């Protein structure tokens, strides 16, 4: 490379490197520095909320991601149909994803808020029964968070799988049909194998996103009752701003790194272009 070429290369690379350092390297390094004291992790373990929160996070991510992805995969097949009303239905179906998360989550909160909520109101009006106080029970609260989360994000992944299905050549299905693979067998022997790699990558990406999910839990159950439905993101927020211990908040979120890093490594390996099947 000639001197002037090198200078131009540097000139183009420097702004990117500066932005990367300012908005990626610095925040991560700062967070690691703040959360570096080992005593913080001892404080986390000693806190009555931390370990139940880890369990909640695992349940929320495990169920939230897998239920959402599996249903999205199935529904993408439904939306492949060419009828006009199905196209129209798709437009309505993606509304929860299009709307701001704050609005959708607050709507869920108000529907389930107990004796004043829409759900319990309907139960009383239609069946004359008192519904549960949804956010007074850990598992009902956690379940409400998961349902709201799946409802909010399933349309997005359905559209992804719909787009992926559209790229599968029709002649493969025609060949399979000649061999007797129709209906569910076509899904098992053609569609799913063709989408398997994408499905796995989507699961990994969604797991990364969901591990940091804050909005749903904060706005639907609010982490209640008594903090029993917190996930790591909301607990970190509580430590930082309610308990005025920002370093403990960052440590709580950082404690997810042992899970996050292996997922990123697997994701990077799976995302290599040569391995994508479509």
């Amino acid at each position: 490379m000639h001197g002037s070429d090198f200078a131009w290369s540097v000139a183009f690379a420097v702004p990117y490197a500066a932005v990367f350092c300012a908005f990626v390297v610095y925040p991560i390094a700062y967070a690691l520095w703040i959360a570096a004291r080992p005593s913080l992790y001892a404080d986390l373990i000693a806190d009555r909320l931390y370990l139940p929160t880890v369990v909640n996070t695992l349940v929320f991510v495990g169920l939230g991601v897998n239920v959402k992805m599996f249903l999205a995969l199935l529904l993408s097949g439904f939306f492949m149909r060419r009828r006009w009303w199905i196209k129209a239905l798709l437009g309505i179906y993606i509304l929860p994803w299009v709307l701001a998360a704050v609005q959708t989550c607050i709507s869920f909160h108000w529907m389930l808020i107990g004796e004043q909520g829409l759900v319990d109101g309907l139960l009383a009006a239609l069946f004359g029964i008192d519904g549960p106080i949804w956010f007074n029970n850990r598992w009902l609260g956690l379940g409400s968070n998961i349902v709201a989360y799946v409802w909010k994000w399933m349309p997005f992944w359905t559209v992804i799988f719909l787009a992926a299905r559209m790229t599968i050549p029709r002649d493969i299905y025609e060949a399979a049909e000649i061999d007797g693979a129709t209906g569910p067998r076509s899904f098992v022997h053609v569609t799913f194998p063709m989408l398997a790699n994408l499905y796995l990558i989507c699961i990994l990406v969604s797991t990364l996103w969901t591990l940091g999910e804050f909005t749903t839990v904060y706005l639907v159950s609010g982490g209640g009752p008594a903090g029993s439905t917190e996930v790591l993101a909301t607990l970190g927020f509580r430590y930082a701003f309610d308990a005025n211990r920002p370093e403990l908040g960052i440590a709580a979120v950082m404690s997810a790194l042992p899970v996050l890093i292996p997922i990123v490594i697997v994701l990077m390996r799976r995302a290599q272009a040569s391995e994508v099947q479509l």
Partner: protein
Amino acid sequence: MTTLTRRSLLRSSLALTAVGAIARPYVANAAATTATVWWVQGFAQEEDVAFKKIVADYEKASGNTIDYSIAPYAPMRQKIVSAVTGGVVPDMFQNTPAEIIALYAWDDKLVDVSDVVETQREEFTETALLTVRCYNNVEKKRSFYGVPYTVGASMNHIWRPLVEKAGYQMSDIPKTWDPYYDFFKDVQKKLRAQGMRNVYGLGFQMNTAGNDSNARANDFLIAYGGEDIVTKDGKLHLDDPKVRKAAIEMLTYPTTAYKEGFVPPGAINWNDADDNNAFHAKQIVMDIERSLSTEVAIIKNEQDYNDIVTMGLPLSNDGKPVPVEQGSLCGLIPKGAKNVAVAKDFLRYLIQPQILNELLKTGLGRNLPAMPAIVKNDPWWLDPKDPHRVTYVRQGLFGPTVPTFWTSNPAYAQVQNEHVWQTAWAEIMKDGAAPQVAAEKAFKRVEEIFAKYPIAQG
């Protein structure tokens, strides 16, 4: 079109440098007269209008500039914590949440503002002064780290029409603590018998997240004789049988009322505004709140405003007046502030009695002035035409008061931040723990926290 040459480029650069050099003193001068102030948004719009007017008047009088930003309570709390953690701070903010004054003073993160307080020292109530006299663990001394301007005290807020619908008069309400709150259990029973299936007698905040539930725990603790849990020297007195008994009773009464169905089940998850919301929806007959925000929020609805009765706290169970915990809103100057002089000057201006009176009056009197002379000199505060303010003034300013516990020792701020008492409530209400068992667990945690905040005596 002008052609850019080396000579023209040099000429332009020199000109820009010259302009910069000439302009610099002006910029520096402007910075020296500007203070950045973060202010919490009021419950009523009038409170923000009042603040903006005070700022405009100050700027006109002083020639300084107040570069303010007004944000709601929760975002402001996050902004303050982030700023102090990151080290890039404004010149002044309020104690949002209230206890940060004690925590930041302990860590030597606040500027000593004794010189500002001294300008009006004689005017302040003794309790208001105590709420800002905090301990600095670096300098090993107490000093004034905040400038108080308003105080708040817990009050009962009651729907008179609901009491009357139940067949009672307001004069039927007992005067002492437990019978007082038991009365609303009977009101609920009578209202339910008339078909009001979702009405509850008591609006206690029972959550483990907000500030109001901390105030409720302290109200009950004091009422049952536990006001010496932390003394002014910062010492914890959980070894005092009277305090322990009071704490157990504080854990017992509200949780029993909750389990018996006299508090809305959702109260365990309420945020700080939800008791107000439930009260306005007439889901609860009474509420306790540490300001007139309940009333001020509906001041434009004259009938509802007049239907609410504001009452002071009842007497203790043995018939003595209960000192109410008085918290103050105050101005804080963080260390690292660029313009301490203007921030102090603004605070000195703000706490002049006539200025402070204007600020609070225009803001509808939701909070009380920290200076009794203001209400004595202005008949507006004790005007009997307003059904709420007179009671609030009498209880909050002229009744017996004690400072917030965390002022004496910031350990109690952490007790509140961790919601130690409310966690015990939750264990009793949700998990069925016995109050004695939950109390022992809470006592242990309180002692652990206090061990981290030793205060030198002398």
